[in-house]
């Protein structure tokens, strides 16, 4: 029951970190739950290890918010495990992730202006 027509992008910001990471994990390809956990862990160098409970609570909420959908397309049979469900980012999810990235960038810019410069980029 996606309700994206009811929700504006702004009302979802700032995104909880777990939600943002899940969107990032799904940006390139559809993944199943465990795939998301592994991708997040790999991308953060093991810093963020999503627990199954946190993951699926986030997934449940993100589905309700229309950020992601469960996909019916399965990967190649040899990789497939039929118990697994795959998730895909929606266009609304893309938009929200972009908005969040913009918000974060804005924040970093402000921090830098105040002298909290993270390195000399």
């Amino acid at each position, binding site marked *: 029951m996606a309700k994206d027509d009811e929700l504006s992008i702004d009302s979802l910001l700032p995104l909880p970190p777990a939600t943002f990471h899940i969107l990032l994990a799904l940006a390139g390809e559809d993944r199943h739950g465990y795939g998301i956990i592994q991708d997040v862990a790999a991308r953060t160098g093991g810093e963020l290890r999503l627990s199954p*409970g946190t993951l*699926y609570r986030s997934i449940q909420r993100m589905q309700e918010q229309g950020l992601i959908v469960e996909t019916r397309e399965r990967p190649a049979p040899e990789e497939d495990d039929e118990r697994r*469900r795959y998730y895909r980012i929606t266009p609304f999810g893309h938009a929200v992730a972009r908005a969040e990235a913009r918000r974060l960038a804005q924040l970093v810019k402000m921090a830098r202006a105040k002298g909290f410069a993270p390195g000399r980029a």
Partner: protein
Amino acid sequence: MMRLYRALLHLYPSSFRAAYGEEMIAIFAERRRAAKGVAAIIRLWLGAVFEILGNAAVAHWEILKQDLPYAMRALRRTPGFALAAVLVVALGVGANTAVFSLADFVLLRPLPYSHPDRLVKIWERVPGYNRLELSPADYRDWKRMSKSFEAMGASRGLSANMIAGHDPLRVEGAYLTAELWPMLGVQPVMGRFFTAEEDRYGAPATVLLSYGLWQSQFGGDRGVIGQKIRLDDKPSVIIGVMPPDFHYPNREAELWAPMQFQEDEFQDRNDNYLHVLARLKPGITLQQARADLAVVTGQLKQQYPRENGKTEANVYFLRDDFSRGWRMAMLALMGAAGCVLLIACANLMNLLLARSLVRQRELAVRTAVGAGWKRLLRQMLTESMVLAAIGGVLGVLLAITVLPLFARLVPDSLPISATPSIDLRVLAFSLALTTLTGMGFGLLPALRACRNVDLGGLREGSRAGGGKKERLRSTLVVVEMTASVVLLISAGLLIRALWRIQATDPGFRTEGVLTLRTALPMPKYEKTTKRNEFYRHVLSEVRRLPGVNNAVYISFLPMAMGGGIWPVSVDGDVKERSDLHTASARFVTPGFFATMAIPLVAGRDVSDSDTIDQPFAAVVSASFVERYWPGQDPLGKHFKFVFHDRVVVGVVNDIRVRGFEESSEPQVYMAYKQMPDNETVWYAPKDLVVESTAGPAALLPAIRRAVRDADPDQPVSNIETMAEITASQTASRSLMVKVLGAFAVVAFLLAGIGIHGLLSFAVSQRTQEIGVRIALGAQPSDIMRMVLGRSAVLAIAGITAGLVLSFAAGHAMESLLAGVKPADPVTFIAAICLCLLMALLGSLAPTIKAVKVDPISAIRID
């Protein structure tokens, strides 16, 4: 292992588990495979457990956040229902919380002393007396000879005139032996305890104050330690102040002084005045301690056959040192409160059942758009939980409000405060009760509603309420009836018992009698002539006051004091107290019997000419004559009593010295002038009895002035009317009757509402049928019979079951009934009539509605 994980997942909401459970298990399985080594596996499991606990709570909370506004909306649509439900829950939870905190306080909660589970009270047991204080000699021997106790200490009452600055004050407290302080393990808020050295005879007098006395008389001055006060003219040094919640040995105690036994106190083995507390050695049971003391008393029997021939020991846990009646009363109250809650639940369940029928269509719609029945169930339970939670909070507030009124129901033999308090245990109990209540009345209707949802509910005009539901609802009404019958009869039996006790003739005048105490301090007043001077002055002044008919002095007022018992010997036949040849001893000034309206049946009153050089005169009660000289003229007979030979000069009727519910010893009244100096000074007349037509308020200032004139250092205490003294005898009982009565009324009303609700609903559901019947020629009387018949069946079923249970309940609490039979016909018939009346009243409106059904419009509805 995976099964455990699967089980843990049940902590999640079922919808969440259904959607993601399998995947979470798969993920856990993969991690489990990846984990190498015991440490990693333990870490994985610990992480999983905490993760599930946290996330499951959040997941539940998220659903609750969705359901709550929905539930609130649903309830707001029917505010009448919501309000009624909340009030009913508040009454049920409130009644149970209040009664539970009382019962917990009295029966369960550990006493506020160190290792309270090993503290025991030790009593003597002789024929006729189950809990008799110990004599110092027995105390010393039992302490020395027993092996089961780590420590043993004694206390006795202390009552003294205290002068600490301005006005003299009568204070109550206790003399304690030094062993008691470490046994109780309570620290003073200021100062210190007295030591074993200070507890020796001849040591300087020391005293500890209660927090209340420190506040009221010393203004909470921290410099009070080391100050001197005068107790009965003896200077004592204040060495400590106890905390506010310290109440040993009873809650009246305001100060504590060392016992300081004198050697001659150990002479008379039958002078019993010590309350003995002991701590069992670790691992020793009550039975072992009893057996141990039985050996000790056995040896003492051989050693002192005359004094100790029939003396046994009685040991109770300090926690349990109150009469069976209290325990029974607590159980009765808990049972009654339970009944109220049961009725409340049944009532709410009925309301919800009716409501769920009305909501069939709403539920059907929600099912149609894809909500599973479990989800609906959860939603409906949320609604009843919201009702229960609001009601529960109100109930706890209600309990906190009424709890101070329960003070009279805390036995005064327990060394705890008078007011039960609400603690975390009680709150936990209320929380559990509220949850249970919410589940109790919500689950069944919700299950019914959700399981039965079919899309048929969407059909227009479909008639709700199948036969099965009606049966359940009828059963609930019968349960309500049954419980309210039990409550009505129990309350009725107790009311009858109270009336019976209150109707007991105390044997003396209770109206228009003001009493107060001027306890004269010793040794200042150990000379009898000096005391007589005081009495003469006060009595002549008081008798002159307008409205006063008479004024007299007596050792102790009846009922206010039951003790003061001495052995009687007639014809040189020396009897010991243990042979039940005892009588209560009182010294009186002339005119006591006339003042108290105690009929003199033979001979004369004591008089002012009964002086110390005359034969010692005694006025005895009729039962005394009956016991020693049945059928003979008692006047002129001699007997030995309180150390001296006495001659009977008069006979009066018996009075109830020990109160309404206990049997009293025969009474012996002696002349106040015939007390040798410094002998039995405890019996020196101290209670002033004033019979007057003027009210206490008008008399008191003048009486105080008369006392001050006689002795400016003499305080006045215990100002009470005789009516108050007799009323306090039944205060606990009448409070209990009030509480039970209130429960019964609530139950009764709820049951009436239950019948009304059920019949109204049934009639509205059957409007068509009734219309058809009327159209076919049924008379109003037929319709009436139909509705009332239904109500009669319910009422009779409920009453029958109720009568059986009431009989059992009555038997269980027979000890509280003061001789009223558990099957008391008056009570039973009254309860049956009340219930039938209630059933009739409950059916009235629905019956009228049924009779007034207009057949044309009823049939046309569809």
